[in-house]
Structures are given as C-alpha cells and as structure tokens.
C-alpha cells in the first residue's frame, strides 16, 4: 500500500538576494531560502524543527519590501514577491557584528576547557568575523559553574546565549516545560524550577541543539575534542523507530551518539535512552570470549555450575555436536531482534534452511502474530502524522516504548491538527492531547471497537459509556468521510493481556475501516527486520509463508513444510522436555518473556542451550554454550524499522575480544554442520536476500547509498491471518485485571549497563484507580499482596487516576517487584486479587 501523491506544481516567489534573483518557496523563511540558494546567514536561535522566535538577532539583514530598507530578522520573515535583500550591506554587517559582540561581552573565555570548542557556532562566527580585541573591560556576569539540571545534563549559565532553543524544545517538542527563562535584564538565565529537575526522557536533545557549550551531557563531558572524533552515520537499533544517528568515536571507543535529521523518521531527535545507550556497548561486562560450562576452578565440566572461557573452535564444536544430534523438530531458535537484517537472514537460513526447523520466533511472547503485523495495510510514520489526519492508538504508550516516534506523534497532534483517539488501559503521554482518550479493560478492546461503530454493547469496555464510544467512532467516521487518513497504531498495551484480544480489536478496526493503515508498535530493536527475514513461525524471507517457498527453495538446502511453534509454544515444548537444542539469539527469556514461570521451566528442561549474546544475562548464565556477538556499533549491515524502512547500520569500532557479528557466527556454525551458507560478507547476504525476496530486490548497496538518510521503504503484505477470536472470561470474582507494561527505563540489560540510565528506573508500584483504592480499603503506600493464579508479588499501593477502573497497573522489569511472576502466557487476561498483609 503506497501513499503516492501526484507531483504538485510548487509556485515560487521571486526575491532578490545581493543583486541576484532567487526563487523562494511560498511561505519559506528568508533565512532558509537564502541558505538553500547558497547564501548563508549566521544564526543562533533559528532551528528548522522549532518555532521561530527571532531572539538572538544574529540573522538581521537589510530587507526592502517597498518601504525602504530596514534591518529585519531573516529567521522570522517569510519571503514575499519582490523582496530585496542585502546580506552584505554596511548596515547588515554592522548589525551582525554588533550582535556578535553583544553575545560575547558576557561570554566566558572557556573555550579551551569547553566541550563545545571546535564545533561551536559562536566560536566559529567569532573566528570568522569577530574583532580581535574586546571593547568590554568590565566584570563579566557570573553564575555558579555547571549546575546539573538532571542526572545527565549540566547547565553552565555563563556560557548560555539565551537562544531559547533548549526551552523551546522542552515546551514545544517534548512537552516537558521544566526549563525556563528566569530573571530579567543582564541576569536573565535558563534554569529549572526549584525542586523540579528537568525530568524528561528527551533532555539530551537540548545538549545537541545548544549552539554553545552551556548544556553538556555528563557521559561526554571532557571525553574528547571534536577534532579528535571520527563519525559515521548509522541507525539506532535500540528500538524499532530506527532513528538516524551519528556514531562518534575516538581511539576505537564510541563516545557519543547524536541525532541526525531524517525527515521521514526522527527529525534529528533521540530519546535519552537511544542517545546514551552507547555506554552499554562499551561496557567492560561485554562478553568477549566464548564460554562453556565448567567448574569453579575454571575447568570444563559439562554439568558444572559455572561458565568458563573456551576457544571458538571448541564452543562451536559443542554447539554443532548438539545440533547435529537433534532431529529438526526438537530444535528451536528464539530471539534475533537485536540482529541486523543480514544476520537475521543468515540465521533464518541456518535455522529453517539447514536445521530444517520452523520453531523459530524473534518475538518472545510479548508481540503480535507476524501474519497480522505483515498482513494489515501498513502505514508510515509520515502517514500517521499527516496534518489533519486521525490516529487511533491501540497499544502501549509510545512515550514509554518508542521515544522518537512519540515526538513525531506529539508534533502531529499538538502542532499539525491531527486527531487522536486512544483505546488504552491507562493514560499515555499523549492523552492530554487526545480528542477521545478511552480507558479500555484488558481483553475489552474488540468490544469497544464494535461499540464505537454501533455494533453490540461495550461489555468488555466496562466503565465506558456507549456515548463516549460512539462519539469516538463518529470522529473517526467523519475523518474517513472527509477523506482524511486514519492510522491505527497497534501493539501490546499490556503484557498481562495476551496478543489475541489486541489482534481481535485490530481486525475489527480493519473491518470497519478498510481505508485505515496500521503502524506496528512492536518495540524491540530490529523486530520488523526479523519478521521480514523469516524469523517467525510459518514465514520465510520476504513476507511470504512456508507455502510460498519459491524464492528460497533454489538456494536453501531445505525448507520446513509445517508451521512451527511461536515463542510461547517453543517455551512450552522446552518445559515439557521436547526441545533438545534451544538457540537464544540475544534472547534474555528470563527478563523478556512476560511469563516468568514458563521461562524458568523452559530453561530448566531444555537440552543444550546455546546463547549468542552481548552480555552475561541471567539467561546466558544458564546456557551450555555462550557465543559472544558484536554490538550494533561494531557491525555493518542494515536495519528495518516499524514502517518497513531499511537503513544502514555502520560499523565504527571493533568488537571486544573475539566477539563477532551474528551472521558470521551462523556461517561458522553451518560450516561445522557441513553446509556452506555462501556468505563471506554482509553484501553477499544482501545480494541473496534481493534474489530470493522480490520485495527486497531494491535493497542494494547502491540504493542504500543513494538514500542514506531516509532509507528505502520495503512494501508488500503477507496474506492476512485471521486467528480465532479470543474468548475473554467475564471479569470474575477477583474483580481486578492486571495491566503490566514497560517504562522507558527498567532493569533490562542495556539500561543496566548504561551508567547514565541505570539509576533512572522508577521502580514498581501497584497503581489503582482512586475509587478502586477506597473500594478495597487500601491506603497509599501500603504494601499488599497481588495474587494471581500463577503467583504472588508484594508491592506498595499507589493511587493512579490514569488507570482504568477495575485494573491494577504494574511496570514490568523493575527491581524488587517481578510482574512476570503473575502472568500466565496461556491466559488471555490476568486476574488479580488483593491480599492485605
């Protein structure tokens, strides 16, 4: 499904710049029109992704609009026909020199010790045009040298030139107006409010856009000088948005990620998690050598309690022996979302084409069936964010899970007139701007959708009035009637609710709104690449099912014929002792599978466990063979984001020890099994992918090089699967249903290994809707037992007006409280009873 727009004739506005006629675009700001046509006007406050404010006055130029020449800020002035601009006149030059001097009078002479030195527009301007000497002999303005405005960002107010970029970003873009201008006159300063830190998931962006060294990021402070940095443009693999980044390193160590402005994706913004996660890749705890089971003395011992280092040849040998001894239907491969497309393809070929097993799943029971994600009409981020469009959120809070996407969505809703309808169990970071923000009980979304469009009673949407649902439905119907695009964001709003009810609701929306397109909110790294490469049961590379093996059959030794288990099925089989070899590709099943008990039993009862990973997670600690993999900053390849957009991942540094790219591990393992996968490089993999998957035919190194920033969108749908409707039990005597979701910061392995992020995990509390709290006679802060069929956890109670009545909210993957202990993967929803202690 493509969003083709017919080419539009863009009229132009003729203006005169320094004597030459220049064609500006209608409404284009003078500063942008000049830059586009080769005349750079200096600026500090202007930023193309922020509302213009015209505050620094650096961009003053003499403009005549028929009333005689006047100095005007070119960053505020839309081009109008006949405008005559002089960027070099005596008066322009004097005004700009004057502003530069004003900005310097109070600016400290910190350049030699300032992180910004070398990449500082103020320094560059001064070097280029500034006077050699200062006319300012008075004492400069003094402030306490850098004050932390949050855990990671330091503010040096002496260096600040008050351009309003950081403050505008905080208010306009992130919606966290926690930094502000204070005081006035020469004492004007940016600061936080007393006792209120700049607690924002996006604070690092302010460091990046600060035109001077006033804002610095703790992880980079005093680490390098810009001229010592090497950089390469790459893709953030942290989540499925695939934000474009610049990876910057010095002496073979990554020191910084910066956002790169890809118009179709992240607009230059990054969440702090995307920005600072490089610290984890550089962490001393990274696995650097293969390991096998051994004893406490470091000797190999197949049933030993410890892992001991082993050479690659030995470790691969142990893995290969186990693999060749096992029949195909007793082999399973879990995980792979961390991998590049190429590594995923190599592993798909190894698992399905060499082992011959279809028990392969990159998702870990926390996602959606591949045929639904690939089978629904697909949306791009741009389509979802169309000005005036309509967005239906049927999934998790994008602010917590997909930070850069959240910023795009927020912009669409707050600044571009998009209408948001939310069907979520809990308030999200966008709810304040939603036209209809409806709290839906776990398991109730499909009923809510039917009721929205006039079918049936909203039984499952208890607490929602039929009017509220009908009003939301009418809003969407009106958008459809007016031909405005409707985009459904679909994902798992709660890990304590099975995929089934969400799929039912998504399919119901699809049936009611055939025009609507869907944007998947599956979060984990390159999970969409994994689906495209066939790391899902029943699928082969290129979004085709096993029945359509024509592409791979000529190059793969074998192709499975019967659909295998998904992740939950694999884990259940392993728990039942039916899996001889379980390969884990970066899959920390003990943390990532919602059902903790199932994950434990599976690991305990699986035969040989082979883990390919970056870190020695608790899951890895229980493996028989551990193979160290290279991190995203250490490999070349490509990435597929949630839109299906393929972009380049670039190697910048070398992997620790003998860790190697995942695709190379697959090649060597195949080699041990007597099969040549045929790959000597990532380009070989890409070439084979292009040959076997028609929809990937255009993904060539040349095409990627030609569209390095925006990437290449892969389009094509799998036949839509329609699983049987999930029967949700009526709310039973327990009364409450669990909503378990992720937050931006948790105790996951990457956050835990990023010192800047590790302390930010909020911890777990049980959130009750205030009336539920009183109904159960609970007091805030009281520690209670949450009792599910599966198990019990102890947790403090909090009042949370953002949750649906009849639910309990718990964050997963937080220290101390393990929500996974309550979740039964085979149940559609998780009932909870509260036990007083």
């Amino acid at each position, binding site marked *: 499904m493509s969003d083709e727009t017919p080419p539009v004739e863009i009229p132009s506005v003729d203006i005169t710049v320094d004597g030459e006629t220049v064609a500006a675009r209608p409404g284009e700001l003078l500063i942008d029109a000049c830059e586009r046509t080769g005349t750079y006007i200096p600026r500090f406050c202007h930023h193309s992704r922020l509302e*213009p*404010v*015209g*505050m*620094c*006055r*650096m961009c*003053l130029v003499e403009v005549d609009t028929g*009333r*005689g*020449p*006047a*100095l*005007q*800020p070119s960053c*505020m002035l839309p081009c109008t026909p006949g405008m005559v601009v002089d960027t070099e006149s005596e*008066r322009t030059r*004097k*005004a700009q*020199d*004057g*502003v530069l*001097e*004003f*900005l310097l*009078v*109070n600016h400290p002479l910190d350049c030699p010790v300032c992180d910004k030195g070398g990449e500082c527009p103020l320094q560059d301007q001064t070097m280029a045009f500034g006077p050699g000497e200062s*006319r*300012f*002999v*008075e004492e400069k303005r003094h402030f306490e040298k850098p004050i932390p405005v949050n855990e990671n960002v330091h503010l040096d107010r002496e260096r600040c*030139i*008050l351009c309003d970029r950081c403050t505008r970003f905080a208010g306009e873009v992130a919606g966290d107006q926690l930094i*502000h*201008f204070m*005081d*006035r*006159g*020469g*004492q*004007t300063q940016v600061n936080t409010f007393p006792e209120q830190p700049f607690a924002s998931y996006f604070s690092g962006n302010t460091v990046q856009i600060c035109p001077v060294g006033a804002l610095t990021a703790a992880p980079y402070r005093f680490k390098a000088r810009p001229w010592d940095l090497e950089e390469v443009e790459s893709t953030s693999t942290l989540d499925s948005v695939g934000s474009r980044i610049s990876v910057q390193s010095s002496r073979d160590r990554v020191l910084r990620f910066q956002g790169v402005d890809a118009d179709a994706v992240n607009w230059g913004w990054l969440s702090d998690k995307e920005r600072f996660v490089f610290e984890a890749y550089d962490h001393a705890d990274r696995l650097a050598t293969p390991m096998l089971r051994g004893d406490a003395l470091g000797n190999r011992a197949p049933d030993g309690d410890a892992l001991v280092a082993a050479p690659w040849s030995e470790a691969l040998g142990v893995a290969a022996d186990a693999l060749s001894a096992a029949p195909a239907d007793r082999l399973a491969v879990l995980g792979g979302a961390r991998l590049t497309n190429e590594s995923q393809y190599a592993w798909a070929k190894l698992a399905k084409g060499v082992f011959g097993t279809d028990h392969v799943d990159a998702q870990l029971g926390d996602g959606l069936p591949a045929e639904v994600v690939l089978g629904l009409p697909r949306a791009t981020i741009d389509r979802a964010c169309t000005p005036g469009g309509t967005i239906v959120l049927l999934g998790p809070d994008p602010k917590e899970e997909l930070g850069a996407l959240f910023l795009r969505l927020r912009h669409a809703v707050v600044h571009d007139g998009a209408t948001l309808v939310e069907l979520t169990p809990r308030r999200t970071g966008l709810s304040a701007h939603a036209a209809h923000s409806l709290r839906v009980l776990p398991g109730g979304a499909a009923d809510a959708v039917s009721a929205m469009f006039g079918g049936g009673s909203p039984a499952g949407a208890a607490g929602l009035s039929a009017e509220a649902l009908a009003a939301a439905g009418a809003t969407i119907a009106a958008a459809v009637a007016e031909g405005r695009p409707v985009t459904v964001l679909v994902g798992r709003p709660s890990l304590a609710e099975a995929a089934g009810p969400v799929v039912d609701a998504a399919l119901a929306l699809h049936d009611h709104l055939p025009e609507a397109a869907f944007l998947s909110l599956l979060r984990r790294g390159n999970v969409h690449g994994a689906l495209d490469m066939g790391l899902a049961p029943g699928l082969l590379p290129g979004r085709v099912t096993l029945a359509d093996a024509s592409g791979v059959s000529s190059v793969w030794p074998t192709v499975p014929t019967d659909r295998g288990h998904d992740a939950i099925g694999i884990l259940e089989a392993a728990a039942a002792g039916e899996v001889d070899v379980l390969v884990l590709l970066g899959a920390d099943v003990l943390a990532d599978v919602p059902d903790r008990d199932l994950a434990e039993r599976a690991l305990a009862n699986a035969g040989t466990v082979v883990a390919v990973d970056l870190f020695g997670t608790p899951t890895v600690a229980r493996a028989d063979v551990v193979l160290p993999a290279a991190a995203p900053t250490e490999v070349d390849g490509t990435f597929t984001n949630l839109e299906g957009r393929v972009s380049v991942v670039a190697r910048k540094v070398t992997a620790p020890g003998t860790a190697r790219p995942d695709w190379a591990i697959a090649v060597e393992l195949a080699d041990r099994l007597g099969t040549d996968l045929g790959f000597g490089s990532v380009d070989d993999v890409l070439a084979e992918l292009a040959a076997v998957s028609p929809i990937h035919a255009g993904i060539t190194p040349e095409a990627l090089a030609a569209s390095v920033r925006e990437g290449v969108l892969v389009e094509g749908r799998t036949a839509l699967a329609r699983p049987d409707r999930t029967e949700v039990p009526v709310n039973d005597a327990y009364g409450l249903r669990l909503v378990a979701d992720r937050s931006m910061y948790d105790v996951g392995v990457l956050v835990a290994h990023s010192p800047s992020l590790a302390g930010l995990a909020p911890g777990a509390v049980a959130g009750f809707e205030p009336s539920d709290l009183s109904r159960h006679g609970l007091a805030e802060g009281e520690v209670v037992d949450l009792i599910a069929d599966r198990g019990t956890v102890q947790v403090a109670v909090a009042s949370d007006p953002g949750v649906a009545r009849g639910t309990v909210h718990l964050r997963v993957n937080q220290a101390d409280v393990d929500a996974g202990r309550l979740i039964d993967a085979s149940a559609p929803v998780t009932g909870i009873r509260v036990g007083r202690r």
Partner: protein
Amino acid sequence: MTGAYVPHAAGYVDNGGPKVVSSRFVHEDSYTLERSLATGGYEGLRAALARPPADVHAEVRDATLLGRGGAGFPAGVKWGFCPEGVWPRYLVVNGDESEPGTYKDRLLMERDPHQLIEGCLITCYALGLSQCFLYVRGEMALGQERIAAALNEAYAAGYVGRNVLGTDFSVDVTLHWGAGAYIVGEETALIESLEGNRGMPRLKPPYFPAAIGLYGQPTIVNNVETLANVPWILANGAEAYKRMGSETSPGTRLFAVSGHVKRPGVYEVEQGVTTFRDLFYGDGFCQGIRDGHELKMFIPGGGSAPWFFAEHLDLPLEAKEVGAAGSMLGSGAIVVMDETTDAVKACHRMVRFFARESCGKCSPCREGTSWEEKILARILDGHGRPSDIDLLLDVGDNISPGPYPVASHPDEGLDAVPFPPRQTTICPLGPSSVAPITSTIRRFRHEFEAKITRGDGIPVSAAPSGGEAGS
C-alpha cells in the same frame, strides 16, 4: 501653597483650563458611583447605546483621539484594524504605567475608575466585544482596589454584565494585575503576561495585536487615558472635542511633571495651546524652577524620549511639533532638571532603569543596555577612558542604528512613527536606553570628559606610577 517647593507632591493640580478627563478629580469621593452619576457619569454610555455601534466608532474616529500610551496612534483608526469575521475579540486596557516619571494613569484609575470603565464599555459596544481585560500595574494597590470596587458597583447597577442598561449588549470586564515588570507595558508583552506567560514582547509583524492578539484573537489594546477620553467624546460629540487642541492633536492631555519645578504634579493641558514654558513657569502650572536655580534640560515625554533644553521651551505641547523638533510627548511624563543636575548621573539613572527592566529576550537589549550601564557606572566611579564616549555611542548605534530613511504611511496612519523602525531589537525598550545617552553626550560632552580626564587631559583612571599592563 504657592511658592513652597514640594519635591514629591505627585498629585493633581487644577489649572483652570478645559477638562475632559480630570473633571471629577476635585471631589473627595470622585471614585464612587454616586459621585460619578451626580456629575454626568455613564451619560456617554447612554448616548452610545442609543446609536448603532458603527456610529459610535465613527464618532471616536472623527474625534482623532490619539493614543496616550506613547506612540500616539489614532484610536479610531486602530479599532478598524480587526480582521473581518474573526471572533471572539478582546479589549485590553493598558494600565501598566511604569515609565520613569509617569503617573497620570494612576490618578485616572484611583480618582475616576468609573470614567475608565465607561470608556471600556463604549469601546466594547462600538466594536461588538463582550470581554474586556483591565491590566493594572502590580504596584498600584489603591488603583486596583478602587477599580475592583467600582466594577462591583457598576455590575450591581447594571452598567456592566448581561444586558447593559436593559439593551441586548452584554459585556464582562475583568481586572488583572501585573507582577512588577515595566516591559509588560509594551502591548504584546502585556498580552503574554495576561495569558500567563513570562512577559516578553512578541515579534512584529503583526504590527498591531488587532490582527493576532490575546489567545491568538484580534485584540485592541489601549491606554487608560485614551479610553478615559471616550465618554466625553460620546457625551459631547467629536466636533466639540476637536474644538479643543490643535488640528492634528485635538483635545487635552494629562502631563505628569516632576523634577526641579516649584509645583510638580499632573496637569490637564489643552494640546497645542500651552507651551513647555507656560507649563514650567505659568502661575496656574508649575510656577517655575525652584528658587535660585535655572533650567538645564528636560525630558519631554517619558524615559524613552530624547531630551530637550532651554531653546525648546516655546514649543507647544503637541505631538507633531515636538516630533519635528526631534523628540516626542510619548507617555506624557515630563522630567525637569536644573543646573545642579549632573548630566552623566542623570543619564546613568535613566539607562540603569532600562538595563534592569530589559526583559532579556533579545541580545542587543539584554547585553547592550547592561553594558551601557556598566560603562556609565565606571565613568561615574572615576574609571572612565577617553574612548568610552565613542564606545557608548557605538554600542547605542548597535541597538538603535543611525539615521534611516523614514517612510511615512498615511494609509496606515503611521504618520509620526518612523518606519521601518530603527532598532536591532524586538521592541523599543532597548532603543529607549539610547536616547538619554545621545541627548546628554551631544549637549554635555564636556561633563563626560571632565569625569574621564583630569584638568591636564590625562585619564583619571591612568595610574600615575607603575608599568603598563602587558600588551
């Protein structure tokens, strides 16, 4: 009372001339509804309500009522700037009066709040507005109190609120007060403040909030005194109004005179008739410079106006002629200084005000005004350098660049306003700081030089002994 020098008698002085806005000031209880009604209060409103709104607007336009907030823009013309068909629209009354030496709006608010309210009501009726905001300077507690009490009276008596005086015209007037910042007198900063934001001016264009103002809606902002004139105009007609004053500046104006005169105070003066000399020396007016002293200089129209000297005394108090002589009547604040005044100190005083009150939004004003202030303070401290005089002028030039071709735009009523504006700043506050500097240096350069150099021409700050600091 005559003869005695009363330095801070910042009160109203009745000079026996025609009265448009100060007629009730002589009464003790001038601020009550009772007194107001007994002396013709709300007659203008009744007269207005009896006519179609467009007529009322036309009456004010015909009266050529010039804005009294500083720029002197004709109110009737400004009222016509609202874009067609965009609703709602608002009237905002600028009662933030904080320019040094200005205290005439304060008297209007304290002494005759009903007159102001009546002016607001007529304006709202003329323009079809149903919401008016009265923004009063934060420090003016008595004014706020009296306006609040007057509003309560007026609501109770049916002058404000639903169905004013039984007509189908309904309007609400809301009182709001500032938090002590001079810059919120600038109309777009005032609107920001009213919206709950930090008071910083908005970028122009749009040049008038009439296009996009409060909450993004068309908004008319007028000064307190401007609106206080409106009831009289409606009660007596534009023709009667124009019989007072000069052709281009009809009617009267309030002038707040302070400084070294014998009788400082607020005077209602017929425009174009009275001269500065009459005002300073006339018996009914300020009665001369304090005994034994003579005039050195005066500020004719608020802190941002270029200064005048003895040769300007015979100029009439009228916008056009004062403008032609190179200054302005601005906010009607006249500060008179005698020969004991140190020009450098006086200049520093004024510049310090602007430096402290700069909102900090744009770099030339934020950095430039405090730099000017520091240089002046340094000169006063005896650490001036000969180059400082040129430096002061050049820093000023970088805030308010030198002479520009001034285009007039009578079609927009921009007769007296130099356009394009001479400023590298966002609003005129920054450039205001330059007026005292250029005024005093032009006339009293020797005073600056005397502070900078000793009698022998050597800079005072140059150390008599000890080596030069390294190159």
